[in-house]
């Protein structure tokens, strides 16, 4: 049996001495917080772990304690700089005293933290997520969905009791313009470890009514604590990026941009801003409609005025032309009337009633006159024809008569009928008074002459 054995206490005392020599003062270490519990007395108990590069295999673990005397200060400082609480899952640079307690064993006493290390680590992780989403070609997918002109049917992902949700509903439902939005809440847990699963489940529910909704609005629960780290999440970002509806991210912060903000179609800083954005979309359309209305009115007025003026000008022109024509024709009518008979004059005066009837009548009159003249002319020709026919006919009969008369007047024919011609000294005697007693008369017969002497003269009484 070995005589140089130590009791446990002796061993622990030696280890403790060795620790004191090896770690005479506090040193800086980096580790991930795997568990974290606040104690009622104000102390904070941590479980630290170092994992390999894959994040799956644990390489080292240790207990750590932040005593209440340091905890309040560390918590405030960490929150102010990183704008997120000191929680499990974060990689932190701690200033620790490496202690060995004879009764409780090895432990680390945290006396300070360097928040900038965590910030750097978060940023590095963010960059990795962004790079991954970029490489997978999904990072801009939601941004590329055209935002609807009228985002009327809105699916909201939020916590029902959240102040931010209340603000959003207040603004959207009671907007001063009277626009009507249809809003449906899909409740989700917006912070803590369940955020990822809850938000993705809400997105899945909305996806079942994808044809009904126009947009999705994600509103953070609100409250003073601004923990956006749950939205720097690859899974949530992937789901949002690939969602078929445009998503408005209202989980942002004045200074911080989460990965969800990056992949969302639009991002706003507050839930109220999300409501205002949606109302603005309606206002744009409202203004556009009013603009169309006034443009319509204006162009109709312009067009009708143009047409009116056009017509008016035509009417004026026509009036001028007509009055010019009218006066011209009046002048010729006067001239004509001066040369015409009273009947024509009266006729023309009778025609001078209205412009249109005047023209019509003038035309009628002219054509009537021409017709009448034509008819007259035909009559005359007919008359001439008749007359000439008549003359010709009567001439013929006269000739016949003449011929007949001539026939009967032929002295030879008359002599043959028993008549005779009496001549004295070669001169035909038609009266007894041309004869005296003792005259020798020659009596001509058709077939010869006889010479006689007048013995007696008897006058017809």
């Amino acid at each position, binding site marked *: 049996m070995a005589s140089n054995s130590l009791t446990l206490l002796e061993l622990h005392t030696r280890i403790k001495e060795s620790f004191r020599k090896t770690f005479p003062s506090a040193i800086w270490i980096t580790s991930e917080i795997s568990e974290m519990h606040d104690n009622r007395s104000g102390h904070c108990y941590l479980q630290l772990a170092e994992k390999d590069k894959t994040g799956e295999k644990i390489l080292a673990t240790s207990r750590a304690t932040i005593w209440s005397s340091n905890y309040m200060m560390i918590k405030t400082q960490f929150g102010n700089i990183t704008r997120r609480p000191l929680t499990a899952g974060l990689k932190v640079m701690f200033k620790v005293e490496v202690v060995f307690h004879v009764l409780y064993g090895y432990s680390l006493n945290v006396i300070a933290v360097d928040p900038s290390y965590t910030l750097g680590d978060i940023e590095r992780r963010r960059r990795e997520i962004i790079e991954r989403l970029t490489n997978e070609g999904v990072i801009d997918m939601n941004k590329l969905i055209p935002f609807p*002109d*009228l985002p*009327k*049917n809105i699916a909201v992902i939020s916590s029902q009791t959240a102040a931010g949700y209340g603000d959003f509903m207040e603004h959207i439902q009671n907007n001063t*313009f*009277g*626009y*009507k939005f*249809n809003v*449906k*809440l*899909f*409740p989700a847990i917006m912070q803590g470890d369940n955020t990822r699963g809850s938000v993705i489940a809400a997105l899945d*529910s909305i996806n079942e*009514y994808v044809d*009904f909704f126009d947009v999705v609005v994600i509103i953070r629960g609100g409250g003073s604590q601004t923990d956006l780290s749950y939205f720097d999440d690859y899974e949530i970002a992937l789901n949002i990026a690939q969602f078929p509806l445009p998503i408005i991210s209202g989980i942002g912060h004045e200074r911080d941009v989460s990965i969800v903000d990056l992949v969302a179609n639009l991002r706003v800083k507050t839930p109220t801003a999300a409501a205002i954005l949606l109302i603005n979309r*309606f206002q744009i*359309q*409202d203004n*556009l*409609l009013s603009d*169309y*209305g006034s*443009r*319509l009115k204006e*162009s*109709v007025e312009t*067009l*009708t005025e143009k*047409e009116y003026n056009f017509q008016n000008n035509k009417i004026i022109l026509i009036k001028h032309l007509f009055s010019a024509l009218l006066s011209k024709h009046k002048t010729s009518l006067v001239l004509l009337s001066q040369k015409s008979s009273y009947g024509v004059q009266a006729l023309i005066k009778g025609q001078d009633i209205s412009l249109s009837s005047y023209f019509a009548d003038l035309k009628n009159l002219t054509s009537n006159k021409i017709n009448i003249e034509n008819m007259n002319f035909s009559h005359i020709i007919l008359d001439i024809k008749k007359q000439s026919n008549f003359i010709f006919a009567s001439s013929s009969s006269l000739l016949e008569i003449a011929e007949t008369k001539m026939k009967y007047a032929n002295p030879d024919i008359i002599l043959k009928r028993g008549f005779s011609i009496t001549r004295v000294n070669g001169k035909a005697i038609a009266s007894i008074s041309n004869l005296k007693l003792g005259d020798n008369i020659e009596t001509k017969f058709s077939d010869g002459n006889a010479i006689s002497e007048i013995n007696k003269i008897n006058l017809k009484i």
Partner: protein
Amino acid sequence: MNEEKLTYKDAMASIEEIVAKLEDNKMDVDELSVGVKKVSELIKFCKSKLKETEAEVDKILADMDV
């Protein structure tokens, strides 16, 4: 015009088209009244989309199992 299937976007596009045609003097007086009537109806339709609520929509929202 099929009122049921008319979307807000289509209505706005039609309004724009007719108003532009009017402004470019490409519409004659005969087409004017038809155009004005159509635009007025479309604007009314669009305005109603902004402000009117549809009972059917409320029912759909209420029936959603969330």
